[in-house]
């Protein structure tokens, strides 16, 4: 006869297996999205090493392989704090993210096979922000992120890191950005 504790362990095991299956399904769906619906994104960011207050020029192109309904395509500039800490013998990570310049490129549109997702836009690194730092336990990271939502597919995101320097663009010299 199965004990109460045994049943609890069984339920836990079942939940873990289900969670693993869901993760695998999501990963496969994401892979399918990239391989079957969209081609590889080509992104140019200028400059790669930006100063605080600097306007970045972003050129994004991604071929469309299959026609689908696009819910949303957003390009944004993100700043992420990443920390590592130890409690006892375990190591943990935490992160906090700020989206500095979200830009909705397309919304509720039809993607046509043979076409491409394309955008050319500018984003400004906020002048009062923190520059990139990379220490052993503490980091501040900057990246351009694309977020694509296609009907009946999981959200697909990609990031391209940039390096933000502890230098300010002198006032009046930066081009006006779409922030």
């Amino acid at each position, binding site marked *: 006869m199965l004990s109460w504790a045994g049943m609890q362990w069984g339920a836990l095991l079942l939940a873990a297996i289900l969670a693993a299956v869901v993760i695998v399904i999501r990963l496969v769906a994401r892979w399918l999205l990239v391989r079957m619906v969209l081609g590889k994104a080509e992104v140019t960011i200028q400059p790669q090493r930006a*100063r*605080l207050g600097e306007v970045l020029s972003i050129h994004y192109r991604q071929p469309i392989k299959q026609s689908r309904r696009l819910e949303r395509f957003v390009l944004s500039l993100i700043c992420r*704090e990443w*920390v*590592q*800490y*130890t409690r006892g013998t375990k190591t943990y990570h*935490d*992160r*906090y993210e700020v989206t500095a310049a979200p830009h909705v490129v397309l919304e509720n549109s039809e993607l046509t096979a043979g076409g491409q997702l394309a955008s050319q836009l500018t984003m400004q690194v906020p002048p009062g922000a*923190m*520059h990139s*730092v990379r*220490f*052993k*336990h*503490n980091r*501040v990271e900057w990246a351009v992120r694309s977020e694509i939502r296609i009907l009946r597919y999981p959200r697909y995101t990609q990031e391209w890191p940039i390096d933000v320097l*502890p*230098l*300010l*663009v*002198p006032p*009046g*010299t930066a081009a006006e950005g779409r922030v």
Partner: protein
Amino acid sequence: MTEGQLAVEVDPGPWPEPEHAHCWPVRATVTGMVSWDSPKPTKIRSLTVELRWRTEGRGDTDQASAARQELAKGQLPPGQHRWPFQLALPPEGPITYEGHLIRIIWELRAFLDVARGPDLEFTVPVTVLPDYDLGQLAAALA
């Protein structure tokens, strides 16, 4: 017991406002004076001054000494002594930061390593700010 008073006077930074007196941009040189006043002779291993930063917040601490200068060692006679110092801030920063998970704190620390007796230290908080890209500023003003 170490008898005497250790102190640090930091020259004002490049900004004229009094509230920015202890602010410097990256790449700047922080200057000032360390003083030691004692009625007795003091034997020391070293007297150093350094600019250093550390992180605080959720993550484990990262820290580094950005610049260090040894000002004296050996026997210090009684009386008041003053040593000028100049320490350069690194161009790569980090700048002083108050974030959500991370804080970056800078300080200037004078440390008197006494040969026979307790050591003494004196710290002054400093604020490090981003610098203007002067190359481009010069080009824009030309």
